């Protein structure tokens, strides 16, 4: 979780990612943020996030992102 938080802090500066569980639905994270995050998360955790994983339920909160990475076998 610490690694994920560090990536979020580096790539989404100034965004209170822990303060919402509707990060996508409330447009706190934009599609451009998602593009950047997908690349960073794939590299950092050795996973392959596909188009089918790109749904708000997987990016609406830090916990949801963490769960996605775990499901995809992230290290």
């Amino acid at each position, binding site marked *: 979780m610490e690694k994920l938080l560090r990536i979020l802090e580096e*790539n989404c*500066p*100034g965004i209170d990612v822990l303060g919402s569980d509707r990060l*996508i*639905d409330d*447009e706190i*994270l*934009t*599609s*451009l943020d*998602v*593009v950047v995050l*997908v*690349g960073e998360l794939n590299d950092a955790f050795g996973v392959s996030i*596909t*188009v*089918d994983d*790109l*749904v*708000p339920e997987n*990016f609406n909160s830090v916990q949801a992102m963490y769960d996605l990475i775990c499901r995809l076998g992230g290290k």
Partner: protein
Amino acid sequence: MVYNVTSCLDNSAGAYPDKIAAADGQAALTYGQLLDQARRIGTALAGRLDGARGKPVFICIGRWVECLPAFFGTAASGNFYVPIDPSLPDRRLAEIYATMKPRVVVTTRRDTRPLPFPGAEILSLEELLLTPPDEPLLRRIGVEITGENPLYCIFTSGSTGVPKGVLVSHRSVLNMTEQFTEAFGLDHTAVFGNQAPFDFDVSVKDIYLTIRTGARLEILEKPLFSSPRRLIERMDERGVNTIIWSVSAMKILSALKTFETVRPSHLRRVMFSGEAMPCKVLNDWMRHLPEARFVNLYGPTEITCNCAYYPVDRAFDDSEALPIGGAFPNTQVFLLDGDRAVTGPGEPGEICVAGTCLALGYYNNPERTAAVFCQNPLQTAWPEKIYRTGDLGSWNERGELMFLGRADSQVKYMGFRIELGEIETAANAVPFVSSACCLFDADREQLCLFYQAEGQDDKGLIAALREALPRFMVPARLYWFERLPENRTGKIDRAALRRDYIEQTIRRN
């Protein structure tokens, strides 16, 4: 004969009263409903403004279907609208308000946020819709609206730190719809998939081409662009066959490898603008959508969307630059060098535009208007305005216009025009910052802010900038300095910062 955009709505509502004119994820309006609502709003606004004409009305509503009757209602009242994104920071809203000082702001009950518009009357759309339409009044106003009357004012980034309001006439918008309809064979069968925010002029094409042709507008909500499968499913479900998107939106779908899994099955026209289209991205789209026609559009807000276009008619390597083509009919595009002489083939020059597409100017900003909307230096015998875009271009060997970049520090990011000076002004206004410089990292598509302060406080600075600037203008990278490097003239050494921090990081990666 159509003289103003309200007549376009009258015509389409007469031809297709029960057809859906516009829809979003939650609601839809038929042409008949849209016309009825626009007339109610127009009647109510004419009353609230005591019959005044040519006054600004803020439409502070999210990108929902309700915006359309608000826009057309404002036009029907003889006034012009200013589309305002309710999610902008308070300070930005206050700056726009200070420039326009509207008497009336229209919002909806969906937006509950308090607005920083002291002195303006805040009216809810729902309340305005209770007003019965006064047909004789609207007819009287309708014949008074000439093509030269302003229709809308859209704000763009300003280099001095204050956004500029570009005022556009009915005539320019009607001209645009005529050129697009003829050039691209648009008619009532088109279903436009709207991506651009309504305070961004790419959306002007979606709205007015829809209403002019009796087509349908499908508003695609922003979160859909973070969920490509759902976006494509929505487009298919609603039969979207035409898109006019910003290049950045197309880049996002390509970067997320969308088309390897899903493809929009009805899409036949793909038009794009807002920034230079990398051929690598275009090729990805073209490979997966072989039945679609692709068109590169060029033009800033000041020339009512676009002055030049290039229908992609040949293959390009990923590393090649895509032409921006040639001028639309009724439009003149030419390149001037530093001596205001026309450049020859292959020679760079500033892209200048003349024709019906020119905006009226910047609202309440005669100096800036005079600086860029100026007399055609090639025509001194009578007054003829041209718009100097500040973009550099050249004609290639095929006679196609190529975009070469900017003559100043304006950049394009996520489709938006950004004056780096505006970000620097906002950073310099933060109390603990003594000096700031903003540069654009084009390779990583990031805004980088270099700031001088006694101590490092990136979080504090980002928080302050988020209160002052729209989200897309908040830098992604911050670099703190006890003292920023200076060149021999004592100015911030931008070249050194670019070389030592941006280019070095790219090399390292």
